Structure formats: C-alpha cells, structure tokens
C-alpha cells in the first residue's frame, strides 16, 4: 500500500498508528542503548494516548522515564542529554504543551549546532500528539506545524499512516539533528499493514497517495484521508484528483509537488493549521515562484483551519477545520475554473 516504505519481500503485520509508533520505539530501544524515552505519564499509565503502552514493563524506568509536569525543564534535559551522547525521544502529552517548551526547542535545540559552528549536535526527537476532533477545546487541539516549520535547524514531519509513523520515527532517530513528529490524535486507532522490523521512511519526501490528471491536492496528516475521500467522490464525476501526502513540512518536497502541478495545472492545499500564514501559504508561494507557474490553469486554492481557536461545541469544532465535502467542493471549483 505504501510504495516508498514497504519493501515487497518484507513481512508486514496489521498495526494501529499508535502500535506502529510503539513498535518503532521498542526497536530503537533494543538497537541502541543510548535511546531513552521521556515524558509525562509515559510509564505505568502508558501515555495519555496509550502510545508508549507497556514499554516501561519491557525496558524499565531508567529508559522509559516519567518526568514531573515540567515541559520547559523536561525538554531542556532532553536537549542536554542529546548534546552529550544520549538519544532522547521526548513525548509532549499534547502538542499544545510544547508552547511551554518553546525556549528549549526554538532557542536552544534548533540553533545549537549552528551557534557553535558545527561543533555540537542535538540529535533528539520530540513527539507531539496534535490536531482537533476530540472535543478537548482550545488548549488541547492545535496544529503547530507551521510554527515549528518556520525554524531553521528543526525538521518537522506529519505521518498520515501507521507505516509512515513507524518509518519516520526511526528516520528521525537516525537524523543527526532535532526532529519534531506531529502525530494526529484521530489517527492513533487507524489500522493498516506495517512492515516488520527496522526500516526508515525518508524525511523530506512527499508521497503520491493517488495519482490523477486534473487537480493536485496537497494534504497532510488527517487531511490526507479526507482528501482521498473527496477524490473518490470526484472520480465518480470523472474528475481525476492527484492526492499528495506532504509528510514533511521542513524540509518540503519541492520536486514532487512541482512535478504534479505541472501535470495537472491546478493546486489545492489542505491543512488543519490556521489558514493564514500556514503550510499552504508556503506551498502556494513555492509554486508561484517555480516553473510550474506557467502551467497553472486556475488560481491556487487553500483550505485551512478557521481564524479562531478550536471551539468545544462539536459542530463548531467540525466547522473549524476542513472536512471532505469542502475539499470536494473546492476541487470542483478549480476544475470548472469557478475561482
């Protein structure tokens, strides 16, 4: 199912997205004695979303460490440990709480190598459960990928499938620099075939989930699935949408997106973060500045989160982020040149 990650001869197993992440962490803990897990309630509780699960029973409290409720300090300890020889995987209970640790992530981890002229490295992974749809309201539902994507020195990925969640986490651990992984909360229970054993999914590569001729839809995380749903509907009316899973916000895969837009002549960006100054703005500008510009048959469209915090009421919450019918309608508009 996943051309760029699943090697055909490799055995696969059905796993949920959460299980695939746990599998990656177990493999990492087994392969590399310098890997440690840190976070709030990741031990006996198993993590707020049960991602670490039973890892503390298998690897002990020295390697699966519950931290106090101290995001700034905890992230900073992870930075210091990474600087001196450990490889921490630090879990924020919700990505929203990374706001408390911005100092260590943005001012320290991201810039350390550069500020010290290449003499130091901070190889660590921040795991961040993200996104809306759980009824947890404004401080537990945000999508911060554009925030972190704005910071040179960080790498930022957003897996949309169990296989990518595992492969990107293992790739993040191989990476010599800090990597942020946004895990979408609504995907934790999603099941699919996942290759067994060790493999990595390259950071910085988008993936064509559905090839098509008429319109390019670049989506990320949960929006990939909504875009695929919309593409099925569009196909019934003879509109052939190409759906690209962005996978990596920084670095961004220019080549795949530009080639697709050259082919289809139409671009729709779909992302959950607030629309203004979001990931779609970057992709739109990238196309406007590229050779694909001459191939555009319609203006570029962006669908993003509302210019508002995520509301509690479930109907308002749904209305605050793109849903499949809106994606379908926007693609139709583009194809009919109604914009």
């Amino acid at each position, binding site marked *: 199912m996943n051309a760029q990650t699943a090697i055909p001869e490799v055995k696969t197993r059905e796993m949920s997205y959460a299980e695939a992440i746990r599998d990656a962490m177990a493999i990492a803990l087994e392969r590399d004695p310098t890997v440690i897990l840190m976070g709030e309630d990741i031990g006996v509780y198993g993590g707020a979303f049960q991602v670490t699960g039973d890892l503390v029973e298998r690897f002990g409290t020295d390697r699966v460490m519950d*931290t106090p409720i101290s995001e700034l300090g905890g992230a900073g300890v992870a930075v210091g440990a990474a600087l001196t020889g450990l490889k921490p995987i630090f879990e924020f209970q919700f990505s929203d709480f990374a706001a408390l640790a911005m100092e260590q992530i943005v001012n320290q981890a991201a810039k350390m190598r550069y500020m010290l002229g290449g003499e130091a490295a901070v190889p660590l992974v921040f795991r961040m459960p993200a996104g809306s749809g759980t009824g*947890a309201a404004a401080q537990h539902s945000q999508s911060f990928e554009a925030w972190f994507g704005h910071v040179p020195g960080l790498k930022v990925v957003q897996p949309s499938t169990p296989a990518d969640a595992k492969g990107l986490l293992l790739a993040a651990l191989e990476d010599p620099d800090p990597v942020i992984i946004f895990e979408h909360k609504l995907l934790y229970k999603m099941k699919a075939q996942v290759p067994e054993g060790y493999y990595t999914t390259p950071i910085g590569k988008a993936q064509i989930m559905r090839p098509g001729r008429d319109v390019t839809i670049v989506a990320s995380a949960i929006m990939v699935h909504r875009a695929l749903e919309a593409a099925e509907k569009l196909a019934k009316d003879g509109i052939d949408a190409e759906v690209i899973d962005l996978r990596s916000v920084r670095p961004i895969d220019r080549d795949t997106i530009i080639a697709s837009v050259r082919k289809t002549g139409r671009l729709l960006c779909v992302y959950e973060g607030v629309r203004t100054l979001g990931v779609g703005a970057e992709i739109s500008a990238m196309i406007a500045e590229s050779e694909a510009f001459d191939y555009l048959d319609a203006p570029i469209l962006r669908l993003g989160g509302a210019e508002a915090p995520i509301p*509690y009421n479930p109907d308002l919450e749904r209305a605050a982020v793109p849903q499949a019918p809106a994606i379908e309608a926007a693609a139709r508009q583009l194809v009919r040149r109604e914009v």
Partner: protein
Amino acid sequence: MTMKDKVETAQDNLPFAIRHFSPDALRAALKKMYLIRLFEEGAEDSYTRGLIHGTMHLSIGQEASAVATCMELTDADKITSTHRGHGHCIAKGAEVGRMFAEFFGKETGYCHGRGGSMHIADVKTGNLGANGIVGGGLPIAVGAALTAKRLGRDDVTICFFGDGANNEGAFHEALNMASVWKLPVIFVCENNKYGMSTSIERSTAVRYIADRAVAYSMPGETVDGNDFSAVAEAMHRAIARARAGEGPSLVENLTYRWRGHSKSDRNRYRTKDEIESWMARDPIARFRADLITHGILNDESATALQQAAEADVAQGIEFAKASPAPQITEVTKFVHAEVSA
C-alpha cells in the same frame, strides 16, 4: 436549648467553622458540597449517555477543599481554577444550569459552548476560569492581585492548583513575584497525591508542597483538605493577611480524587485499597455529621438540603437540554472584541 448552652460553654473547643460562621452559612456550605457532588455525578452520567463529549476531570472526594476555601469570598474576590474546576466554579457561586449548558455545548453556557468543562468560568462571580494548561492560572492570579493592589481595592485572589502543577516553572515564578511585590493572593494547592499517574514521591523533591513556601518567604500551611473546618481556618488566616496588605500565603489541602484522572484513566498506578480508604474519609459525610453533632442540622434537615441540591441538578440538566446550540456560522465570534460599525 440545652444543646445551645453546652455549645456556648464549650466555645473554645468547638471547631473553627462552627464558631466562626453562622448556621445559615454552614447549611449553605453543606448544600454547595452536595451540589458539587451531584453536579459531577450528573455530568458523568450525561457523558456516559453521549450527551457530553470530550473529556472531563471530576473532583468527587475533594468538595470540602473547594467550598471551605471560598467561604469568606465575595463576588469582588477572584479565583483562578484548574482543569479539575467544577467544584471551584460552584463554590464561587455559579449556577449549575449554565454549567450543564456549557458542558452540553450550548449558547446559554457560561462560555457560550466554546469552552466546555476544561474552560468553565463565571467571570461575574469572580471565577476567572478553569484552565487546560497545568499551572496556567498561577501567574494570572498574581496579575489579578496586582490589579487589586494598584487600584487600591481590598479584594483578594485565590489561586487553585494541583500538586502536579508545583513542578511547572510558572509556579515558582508566580510565588516569587507575589512575595516580592507583597500581593494579596493565596495559593491553594489541592494535593490529591497524584498528577495524573505520577505520585508526589516520584515527581517532587519536597514531601509537602507547603514546604516550598519557605523559598519564597511566605507562610505555608498543610491541612487536612477533607476537614471543612481545618481548610476554612487556614484560609481565614491567609485571607486576613492578604487583606491587611501583608502579602501572599500558600495553603495545601491534602485530599484525594475518587475517580480516575479523566475519562481515559485505568487506575493502574494506585491500589483499590488506597481508593477505598479515602472513600471512607468522605468530606461531605464528615461535614454533615459535624453539623449534626453541633446542632446546626438534624438528619432530616440535612437530607432536605441534599434533596434541594438534587432538584437543582435535575433542573439544570433540563435547562441545558432545552437550550439552543451556537450558530455554526459563528466559529470566529469572540476571537476579538466586536467593533460596532
């Protein structure tokens, strides 16, 4: 009136609350404790029935702390609350109907359906809001106390927080500023032994949170948080100090949450024995018994208070069900002040 005679002669041996508050105030306090318990049971039940979505953090077992802490406050006094904030909200004077409406996501709710349980607030009665961020309210409370001092008002701010929150930097920064500027704020730690699954022993370098007060040159006191009178007495001292311009205090109420941390807790970090031993120390049953012992109530009138609270809760749920939902087109309403054309 043999009972009354006995009470007067033994005045000094009476619990603080019985000496200090009027019988009416004590009865109202017991009713509020019932209201909190029944409100949360009602919310839990509505959640199970799918009428409420998301998650919620119940304070069942901690009612004495909320109500006794707020006993001496007026609407001019402020509180900042936490994710476990339903009890604080009721203790400060909110109506359960508008609280249920908020939980049901309705326009008539305290936050017009935008906030839900984790952001429940009632600004008019001085509740500046629950908080989804652990420790988020600590510096905000200091700011509210700064306002009172600058504007020459004598109101105080009560800052509720959990034992887990004491390990956030915000806690330490807030206490330091409050002390340096001698602000009228009382930091009230509801120490229920755990921050989610992590016990104090595993997370905190001091045995009692009140031990931290020394580092910020303010009084720190640890009391039995399930003893209404003990909490009220500690708060009385701290509030008097704050209103007299002498600065902040830290009060730690030792208590226990009977329910899991939130809706997703499997209780794997604590024993059934521990939970049961705390359920045997029910703060409501204890306060009720104390009031009966001291002749403030009899069994019948106590039961009548409980039934009145039950009726309020039932009515509140009906109000919430019958209330309208927000307009779907108003997602961006309240992001900024509305500027009239």
